[in-house]
C-alpha cells in the first residue's frame, strides 16, 4: 500500500500463510484467520504518523506565507531521506529470508517423503565468530560483575557484623572488669538478648541477710541492640535509698540535692536510635552510662541490705530504743523519751517517680510515697509536738544517713575479713561498733548524743554571750559519741601592755604567771565532764589552803548545772589571775573560792567577790566589793541590796577589773604609808 512518496509505511512484504502444525495424516493446520478489518487496523497502527503530522504543520505554515503549491511540492521532494531507512530495509529482507527458511524446515519436518540427507552448518565468518565470542565474554563479565557486587554486599554485612560483635563484646569485657557477668545458656533467650546478665549481689552480705528478702534487682539482663550497643534492662525499684527523718521535723529542711545524682536509664538511650556513624566515643559513653546505672543499682542494693540489717537488729531489744512503727520499707524508732526517728526506703530515680506521689511533699505525706493511713497518723502524732519543729537541736539527717551506711559497711567488711581469717585490720577504722549494743544501738546512741551535744553547745553559746571575755573553741574529736569544747579566758592585750610598763617579763615568767586559762567540756554520750585549771577546788577552799593552785579540777555534771559550774570555774580563774597580779605589785592578798581578799591595816580586809548568775541578761558574772572588819565573813551574796560593807561594782570587763585591783593596790599602799 503505497500512498504518496513522502509517507513510508512499514509493511509485511511476505503475507505468507504459515502452517501451525501438520498432523500424522498430513493435514496442515493453519492458525485461525485474522479478520480483514483487524488486519487493517493493525496495519494502520503500525504507521508512524508523527512524521507526517509534523510535516503537515510545517506545510500549513509555509502555505500561509507563500501559498505556492508548486514550491511546496519542490520543497517536499528536497527533504532528506529517513536515516534508518537502510536498516529497515535490511531487516525486512532478513525477515523475508528467515520466513522462507522456517517454512522450508517446517515442510521438511512434516513431510515424510522428504528426508534430510545431511546438513551442514554454514561455516561462520570470522567476524561472526568474534562477535559470538564477544557476546559470550560480555555475558560472563556481566555475571562476574554481579558476583562481585554480591561479594561486596556480603563482605559489608560481615564487616558490620564484626564491628557489632566487637562493640558488644568490647563493652561486655570492659564492664566485666568491674561487674560479674553471667551467661544463661539454657534460659529462654528473647530476641536481641544473648542471655547475658550482670550479677550484682554482694555475697559478703549473704550470711547477714539470710533471712531477708531475696533481692529481685540483683540480676540485670543485658540487651544486645542490633547496632551492637550494649544496653541493660533496669529492674523495677532499682533506685532507692535510705532516708532518715525526725518525726515532726519539716521534711523540706532536708537537703537532698547533693546526695542524689543524675539517674541514668540506658534502655532509652538516645544513641541506640542512630544506628549509623556510631563512633568509639558513643560506645564509650554507652559503656560509661551502663556502668553508672550498674553503680546506682548496686548502691541501692546496698542500701536495701542495710535497711534489712537495721530491721534485723531491731529484733534484739536495745536499751533506750524501741520500735514504734514498722511497715514495708518503713521503720520508726523512738530513741530515749523525746526523739523519734523514721527510716524508710524511698525511690530516688525518675523511673520510680510515678510510684510516689510527692517525694518531698509536705508533712502530711512526708513518709515519701508510702502513702497510707499509717503515715498520716504518724505525721499527725509528730505534729502534736510543736517544740520539735524547731530544728536547731536536730543533727542533719543526711549526715546521719551517711553515717548509718558507713558503720554498717564497716561492720560488714570487718565480718567479711574475719571470715577470711585475715586479721590484717580486724579493728575497723574510726571506732569499733560496741558489741554490747550492736551497730544499730551504736547508731541510736550516736543520734541521742548528737542531739544532747547540740543542747550543750547552745548552753555554752548562751554562756559565752553572757561573758564577753570568754572564747569558745570547738575541738573535733573524730568520734561520733564524744564532743569536746573549751572555754578560754585570755588576759587582754591592754592589760599586758599596762603591766609590761611596770614590771619586766622575766618577773612574770619567774612567777609562772599565765595569760590564758582553759576550761574543757567533754561530752561522752550523755555524760558531761568539765575540767579546768587554775582554780582551787571547792575542797581546797574548805581546807583553806591555796597551795595546790595548779591542780586540774574535774567535775561530772548534768545539763542544768553546767552553766553554773562553768561560770564558777571562770570566775575563779579570774580571781586567780587577779590574785597573781596583786601579788606581783606587792599587795598582801589571799583568795578563796570566788573571793579575793586584800589585807588592809588594822586587820581589816577588803574583798573582791564574784557573783555568778547564768540567767542574768546583763552579764553572767558581776562583782562586789566587800569591806570586812574581821568580824563577819563576806560570803553571803544572795542579797542584792548594797549596805555599808558592800558595794556592787557591776559587770566589769577584765580591763576594768585589773584597773580596780591596781587602784586598790595604790589605795592600800597609801594606806600603808599613812
Amino acid at each position: 500500500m503505497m500512498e504518496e512518496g513522502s509517507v513510508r509505511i512499514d509493511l509485511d512484504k511476505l503475507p505468507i500463510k504459515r502452517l501451525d502444525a501438520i498432523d500424522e495424516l498430513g493435514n496442515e493446520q493453519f492458525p485461525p484467520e485474522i479478520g480483514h478489518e483487524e488486519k487493517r487496523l493493525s496495519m494502520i497502527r503500525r504507521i508512524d504518523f508523527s512524521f507526517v503530522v509534523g510535516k503537515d504543520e510545517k506545510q500549513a505554515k509555509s502555505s500561509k506565507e507563500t501559498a505556492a503549491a508548486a514550491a511546496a511540492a519542490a520543497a517536499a521532494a528536497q527533504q532528506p531521506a529517513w536515516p534508518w531507512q537502510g536498516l529497515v530495509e535490511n531487516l525486512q529482507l532478513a525477515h523475508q529470508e528467515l520466513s522462507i527458511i522456517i517454512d522450508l524446515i517446517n515442510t521438511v519436518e512434516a513431510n515424510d517423503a522428504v528426508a534430510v540427507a545431511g546438513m551442514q552448518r554454514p561455516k561462520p565468518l570470522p567476524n561472526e565468530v568474534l562477535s559470538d565470542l564477544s557476546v559470550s565474554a560480555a555475558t560472563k563479565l556481566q555475571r562476574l560483575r554481579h558476583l562481585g557486587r554480591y561479594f561486596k554486599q556480603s563482605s559489608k554485612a560481615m564487616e558490620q557484623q564484626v564491628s557489632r560483635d566487637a562493640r558488644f563484646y568490647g563493652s561486655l569485657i570492659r564492664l566485666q572488669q568491674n561487674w560479674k557477668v553471667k551467661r544463661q545458656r539454657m534460659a529462654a533467650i528473647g530476641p536481641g538478648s544473648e542471655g547475658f546478665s550482670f550479677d550484682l549481689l554482694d555475697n559478703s552480705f549473704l550470711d547477714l541477710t539470710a533471712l531477708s528478702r531475696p533481692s529481685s534487682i540483683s540480676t540485670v539482663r543485658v540487651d544486645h541492640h542490633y547496632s551492637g550497643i550494649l544496653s541493660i534492662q533496669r529492674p523495677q525499684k532499682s533506685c532507692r535509698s535510705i532516708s532518715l527523718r525526725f518525726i515532726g521535723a519539716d521534711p523540706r529542711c532536708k537537703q537532698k540535692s547533693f546526695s542524689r545524682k543524675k539517674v541514668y536509664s540506658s534502655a532509652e538511650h538516645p544513641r541506640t536510635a542512630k544506628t549509623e556513624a556510631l563512633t568509639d566515643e558513643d560506645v564509650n559513653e554507652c559503656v560509661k552510662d551502663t556502668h553508672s546505672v550498674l553503680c546506682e543499682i548496686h548502691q541501692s542494693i546496698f542500701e536495701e541490705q542495710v535497711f534489712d540489717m537495721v530491721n534485723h537488729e531491731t529484733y534484739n531489744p536495745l536499751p533506750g530504743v524501741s520500735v514504734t512503727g514498722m511497715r514495708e520499707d518503713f521503720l520508726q524508732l523512738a530513741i530515749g523519751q523525746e526523739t523519734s526517728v523514721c527510716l524508710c526506703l524511698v525511690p530516688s530515680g525518675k523511673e520510680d517517680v510515678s510510684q510516689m506521689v510527692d517525694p518531698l511533699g509536705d508533712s502530711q505525706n512526708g513518709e515519701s510515697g508510702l502513702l497510707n493511713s499509717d503515715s498520716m497518723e504518724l505525721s499527725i502524732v509528730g505534729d502534736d509536738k510543736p517544740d520539735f519543729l524547731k530544728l536547731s537541736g536536730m543533727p542533719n539527717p543526711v549526715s546521719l544517713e551517711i553515717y548509718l551506711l558507713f558503720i554498717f559497711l564497716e561492720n560488714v567488711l570487718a565480718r567479711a575479713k574475719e571470715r577470711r581469717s585475715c586479721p590484717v585490720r580486724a579493728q575497723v577504722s574510726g571506732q569499733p561498733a560496741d558489741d554490747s549494743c550492736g551497730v544499730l544501738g551504736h547508731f541510736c546512741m550516736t543520734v541521742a548524743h548528737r542531739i544532747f551535744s547540740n543542747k550543750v553547745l547552745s548552753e555554752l553559746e548562751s554562756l559565752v554571750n553572757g561573758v564577753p571575755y570568754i572564747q569558745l573553741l570547738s575541738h573535733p574529736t573524730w568520734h561520733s559519741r564524744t564532743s569536746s569544747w573549751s572555754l578560754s579566758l585570755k588576759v587582754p592585750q591592754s592589760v599586758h601592755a599596762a603591766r609590761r610598763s611596770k614590771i619586766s617579763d622575766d618577773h612574770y615568767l619567774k612567777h609562772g604567771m599565765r595569760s590564758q586559762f582553759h576550761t574543757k567540756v567533754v561530752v561522752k554520750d550523755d555524760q558531761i565532764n568539765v575540767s579546768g585549771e587554775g582554780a582551787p577546788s571547792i575542797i581546797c577552799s574548805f581546807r583553806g589552803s591555796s597551795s595546790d593552785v595548779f591542780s586540774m579540777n574535774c567535775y561530772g555534771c548534768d545539763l542544768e548545772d553546767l552553766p553554773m559550774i562553768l561560770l564558777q570555774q571562770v570566775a575563779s580563774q579570774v580571781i586567780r589571775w587577779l590574785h597573781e597580779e596583786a601579788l606581783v605589785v606587792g599587795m598582801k592578798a589571799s583568795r578563796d573560792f570566788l573571793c579575793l581578799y586584800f589585807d588592809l591595816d588594822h586587820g581589816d580586809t577588803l574583798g573582791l567577790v564574784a557573783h555568778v548568775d547564768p540567767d542574768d541578761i546583763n552579764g553572767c558574772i558581776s562583782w562586789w566589793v566587800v569591806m570586812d572588819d574581821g568580824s563577819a565573813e563576806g560570803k553571803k551574796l544572795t542579797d542584792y541590796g548594797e549596805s555599808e560593807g558592800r558595794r556592787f561594782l557591776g559587770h566589769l570587763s577584765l580591763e576594768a577589773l585589773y584597773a580596780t585591783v591596781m587602784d586598790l593596790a595604790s589605795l592600800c599602799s597609801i594606806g600603808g604609808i599613812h
Partner: protein
Amino acid sequence: MSKAGASGAGSGPTAAATQAAHQKQKALLQRVDTDVANIVDNFSLLINVARVNDPPIRNSQEAFQMEMRAARMVQAADSLLKLVSELEQTAIFSGFASLNENVDRRIEVFNQLEGSTERLLEKIGEEAAASLKELETHYYSSVLRTCQRD
C-alpha cells in the same frame, strides 16, 4: 583462644573436663578446617567456571553455578564469623586466670583508692577543724563581739 580455654579447663581437677575441653577444641578446629576448605574449594571452582566457554549454552549453566559457589563461600565465611563470636564468648567467660588476675588488680586499685580517700577525708577534716578554730578565734576576738556588751 580455644587453646587458652582448653588449657584453663585442663588444669581442672577432673579428667572428664580435660577430655571435654579437648573434644571441644577438636570440634572447633574441625569446623575451622571445614569452613576454610569450603571457601577455598568453592573459590577454585568459581575461578574454573569463570572462563568463557565456546558453546554459549554452557555459559548460562555456569552462571548459575557461579552464583551457587558464591553463596556457599559467603555461608562458610558467616559460619567462621559465628565461630569467632563463640570463641570471644569463651574467652570472656572461661579465661578464669585472667579474670582472677583482673579481680586482684581491681582489689588492689580499690584498696589504694580507699586509702587515698581516707587520707583525703582526714585532711579535709583537719582543714575544717583548723578553719573552724581560726574562725572561732577571729569571731571571739573581733570588735563586733567585744563591743557587743558595751
